[in-house]
């Protein structure tokens, strides 16, 4: 039997490493509730939520080359869907709430996406920002429907039909909800990996690199962009539901455009060119912000400064840094073993 070519072997090696790393990470996260403080665990819940949102955002940004500055819109839709369903309609099951949030996001994303994906680059960013602010303005101004700037409360939900109302807030968040969110993150990651690797993902990358050429080759550019937009909106809604269920509140600031900016910030911090970048970014951003908030009242200044440094010196983000480091290590290792 002929030996596999070196590149094939290297790819297999890398895939094994990725799978091994992923399994290890999941194992650590699954065991964490046994060792970490409740505070850390309640901090990880938003990390999970943002990780899901950023996976979706990066399908637009990294894979399709469309930078949305209004993606917070879909997190807010998820959160308000959760508030309306649990508060007004008496829905108890988180599964139903998630489905409802996704449905609402899809219904909004189709017309918004239809108008937005005709544009690329900065125009796309400005248009998505406008739609996001349109919804924010609706939330703030129509006080009777949305609760205005105080938002709406989200009732305790059942997970998989289990009534957990006997648990305290912290017990609920650090136990059942933690694992529920972890499973959601794993499912969302695997699904997104499949999407990005599929012919659909290839179409998106092709139109990103050269839209006109892709169109000549038969890629229906607008249709594919719209599909990516709707998918990313659904991911955003899942994240919004999780955030609202955790905090017990749907806040209009979720839809504000600076929140969208933060989402992009997280993605670039992690590294938008890498599949795992958004996951890294969500984790780094949440803990960095928490650490800075503990240190200084002026944490926004520090976060802004960090963003400046990242944009200028580390444009490929933390995942890019890690990739460089492993390449360097591997090269050194190869040299040594060849000697």
């Amino acid at each position: 039997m002929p030996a596999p070519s070196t590149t094939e072997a290297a790819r297999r090696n890398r895939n094994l490493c990725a799978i091994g790393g992923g399994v290890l990470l999941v194992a650590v996260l699954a065991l964490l509730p046994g060792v970490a403080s409740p505070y850390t665990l309640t901090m990880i819940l938003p990390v999970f939520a943002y990780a899901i949102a950023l996976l979706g955002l990066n399908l637009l940004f990294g894979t399709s080359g469309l930078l949305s500055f209004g993606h917070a819109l879909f997190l807010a839709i998820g959160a308000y869907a959760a508030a309306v369903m649990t508060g007004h309609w008496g829905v108890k099951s988180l599964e139903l709430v998630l489905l409802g949030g996704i449905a609402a996001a899809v219904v909004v994303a189709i017309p918004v996406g239809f108008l937005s994906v005709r544009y690329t680059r900065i125009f796309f960013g400005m248009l998505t920002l406008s739609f996001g602010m349109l919804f924010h303005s609706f939330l703030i101004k129509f006080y009777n429907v949305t609760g205005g700037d105080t938002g709406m409360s989200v009732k305790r939900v059942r997970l998989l039909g289990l009534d957990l109302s006997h648990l305290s807030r912290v017990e609920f968040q650090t136990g059942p909800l933690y694992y529920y969110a972890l499973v959601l993150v794993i499912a969302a990651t695997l699904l997104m990996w499949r999407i990005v690797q599929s012919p659909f993902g290839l179409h998106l990358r092709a139109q990103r690199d050269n839209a006109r050429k892709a169109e000549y080759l038969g890629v229906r550019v607008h249709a594919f962009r719209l599909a990516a937009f709707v998918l990313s909106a659904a991911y955003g809604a899942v994240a919004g539901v999780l955030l609202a269920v955790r905090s017990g509140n749907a806040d209009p600031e979720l839809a504000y455009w600076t929140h969208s900016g933060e989402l992009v910030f997280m993605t670039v911090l992690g590294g938008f060119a890498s599949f795992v970048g958004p996951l890294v970014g969500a984790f780094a951003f949440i803990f960095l912000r928490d650490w800075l908030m503990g240190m200084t009242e002026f944490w926004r200044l520090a976060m802004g400064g960090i963003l400046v440094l990242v944009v200028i010196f580390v444009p490929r983000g933390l995942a890019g840094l890690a990739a460089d480091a492993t390449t360097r290590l591997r090269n050194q290792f190869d040299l040594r073993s060849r000697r």
Partner: protein
Amino acid sequence: MAAFAEIVLGGLFHAAVLFLVAAGLQLVFGVQKIVNLACGAFYALGAYVGASAAKWAIGVGLPTPLVLVVVLLAGLACAVIGPPLERVLRTVYDRDESFQLLLTFAFLLMFQDLFRIGWGANPQTTGSLFLSFGTLDLGLFKTPAYNVFVIAVAITVAAGLGWFLQRTNFGRLLRATAENRAMAEAVGVNARAMFSVVFTLGVALGTVGGALVVPASAASLDMAAELVVEAFAVVVIGGLGSISGALAGAVIVGLVRAAAIVFYAEAELLAIYAIVIAVLILRPAGLFGKEAV
């Protein structure tokens, strides 16, 4: 009739300030191809510095017209932050525009805390400066004299900017650079210096806009992020990169907003965005824009 005139004048006042900021945004986009999210921060900076300058000028007992000159000069002086910021932006000119956008977003975040450090969380006002201008009696109705003054300043700036861009040598070089940077550089335009000047001019338009608005309202921490949204609406309606577009867009947004506040306050921003979306569907490049990308 009087109510109608009040709406129009109120709208034009808002439009005047919006035009100044949006013109800065358009100028920077036209030449440097950067959408400057920090324009809102410049506007807020002008407002804060303007408020402090007004307090100082009133404190030393200057007469009202001179206070106004001091406020305007203070707004203009804020433009000194232009060159150093442009120097930072220069590091990402060759990168994807998402990085440029993010860098200006970072500026906005940092400025918000700088205002908090400098002026605290409470809004800063200029006291009774606005009232001391009195009202103008225009026969059918009365209007605050200050509003008329601001509208006049904006018209002057618009005319001056038009003259500068169309008639002066530097303006021609500037438009040439905006049209085709490589070609302009080939015939000897120093694009680096040009960018620095244009960005500083953009900052100055924003800070003067902020300084002008502060006697009529207040300088607050939210104003930076809020203005960005309206300025974006203005440039989308007018067409990205066009100064005349900024003027038309500002007038439309100003008037619609003023009318909405009177008739149906809930719809203030919704009405503006309805127009934004209508323009994008009917005329995607905006009223005065070149074809969209």
